[in-house]
């Protein structure tokens, strides 16, 4: 019977041989350049290795060492700050803009549909260069403006300020990513049948009630998607803070993210084991937050259904 089953599978495999031909290029590259590195990184996380001498098995030492490092602790805090505020503000702003453009705009709908997307075309690194120019201490346009308004020339060092650097990163993320979520929310809004709104209006339901009782629940899957995507990006944030602080992490590591800590550990200090351990911490955070979101979504759906 077992051999009969195997024979059937074999027969099917032969009949569908084109399937294996079709997925083979993808699978091959995927196994060699994605699966293998990930498995190797698991191994690396338990070793001390500088890339030259023999790797040395250290068990969980790398994981413990990272936790003891004050810079790593700071990076956790910074990452949480940037992830949280960039996700909340970007998704919220995009939601508001999408609903307003979709339902309330009096003219120029196609302009609004396009304009918020343009920053998305700009590489995060390039956007950071432009932001650096605008916020530079000497003759940056922001200082020029604030100087003109207060009457005394301003030379405030925004990028060197421990208090301002993180909000600047968040501002950069908002500027670049809001357009994407707007597009996603607009696509979701367009799939809501118009007669639901008409019916609600006929019954005299107010604007806010229409939004909170009809639009919002129907947008929930899109909001969840946007939040998860923003979280994936936020937890690994690298390009923006790296370029804004010219790779240094800002004054007193005030903008060092987990991604930057990983990068510096591996590629400047050549501590590949510790770096790999950090990458697994990031992975754990992504998994935990994704699960939390899914649980939250399920609960919300249950509440509205």
């Amino acid at each position, binding site marked *: 019977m077992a051999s009969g089953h195997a024979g059937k599978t074999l027969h099917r495999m032969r009949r569908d041989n084109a399937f294996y031909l079709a997925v083979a290029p993808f699978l091959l590259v*995927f196994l060699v350049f994605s699966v293998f590195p990930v498995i190797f990184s698991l191994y690396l996380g338990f070793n001390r290795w500088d890339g030259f001498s023999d790797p040395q098995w250290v068990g969980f030492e790398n994981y413990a060492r990272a936790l003891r490092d004050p810079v790593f602790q700071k990076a956790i805090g910074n990452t949480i700050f940037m992830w949280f505020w960039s996700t909340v503000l970007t998704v919220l702003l995009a939601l508001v803009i999408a609903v307003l453009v979709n339902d309330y705009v009096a003219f120029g709908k196609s302009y609004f549909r396009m304009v918020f997307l343009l920053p998305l*075309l700009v590489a995060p690194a390039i956007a950071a260069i432009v932001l650096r120019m605008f916020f530079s201490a000497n003759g940056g346009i922001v200082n020029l403006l604030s100087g003109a308004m207060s009457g005394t020339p301003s030379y405030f060092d925004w990028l060197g300020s421990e208090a301002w650097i993180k909000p600047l990163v968040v501002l950069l993320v908002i500027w670049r990513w809001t357009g994407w979520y707007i597009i996603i929310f607009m696509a979701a809004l367009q799939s809501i049948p118009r007669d639901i709104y008409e019916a609600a209006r006929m019954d005299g339901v107010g604007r806010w009630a229409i939004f909170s009782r009809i639009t919002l629940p129907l947008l929930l899957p899109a909001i969840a998607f946007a939040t998860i995507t923003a979280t994936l990006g936020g937890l690994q944030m690298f390009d923006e803070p790296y370029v804004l602080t010219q790779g240094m992490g800002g004054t007193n590591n005030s903008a060092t993210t987990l991604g930057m800590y990983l990068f510096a550990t591996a590629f400047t200090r050549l501590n590949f084991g510790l770096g790999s351990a950090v990458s697994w911490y990031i992975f754990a955070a992504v998994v935990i937050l994704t699960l939390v979101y899914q649980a939250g979504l399920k609960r919300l759906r249950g509440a509205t259904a």
Partner: protein
Amino acid sequence: MIGMFRNREKRFNLLITLVLLALSIFFILPLYWTAVFATRTLNEVFQFPPPLWFGDNIVQNYKNIEAVFPPFRPILNSLIVAVPKTLGLVLVSALAGYGLARYTRAPGHKMILVVTFATLFFPPSLALIPFFLQMNALGWLNTYWPLIIPALASGFGVVWMYTYIGSTVPKELYEASEMDGAKGLSTFFFVVLPIIRPGLAALSVWTLISTWNDFQIPLVVLSDGSKFTVPLALTTLSTTHYSDMPAVMLATLMGLVPVFILFGLLSRQFIAGLTAGSVK
């Protein structure tokens, strides 16, 4: 009564539109100012009020950049990476997406599909360090291979093509093609590929633009300044020639132009690519 209500609604909508208009300026002003500053002299840029319209110093600014680095080199480098990667990624993804969409009962189908979807939630930073070591072992560091070959397997690309093919190619077509005696992958190349051309275009634009903007992996892999792609080269330029703001702005603008041209030509496809992930 109803007329008054309508009027109030109209005024409300007008107000909303004006607020959005102001907000949209915040989104385009940095880009607009980059373009304006690129045409101004150093003195004009530091004036108050800042210039709001284009100047006539663009040629001098260009000469200033040219004196310190070849401005078209990074653009060429980015093209050398982005074009072959995009062609390969789209073909590999379309093939795998076709296989997954058509042969739903082939042994192993489900596992491959689940794994492919799961990759969407895998943080790329997990593979960064071993990836670097692997490229080192292969002798590929400081070449373009690491940016092209490993990128051919894209979970996003496969999921996107799988969804697209599943929704646009009718199953009957496969049966008809089989009746005609199509063998192996000939159905894919002669029947499916021509039908899914819009999907291929959307994935291509999306891949081209995101490759153009890639920063971290090129940063890890490339060390020779003459091989730098656009974001890397500009980051370096902006730190070494920080004081000449108009020149840096012009170089930045030049690095942005190819993407904006592409977007201008294929914005519809780009937007289709953006929403592909969210609509399931």
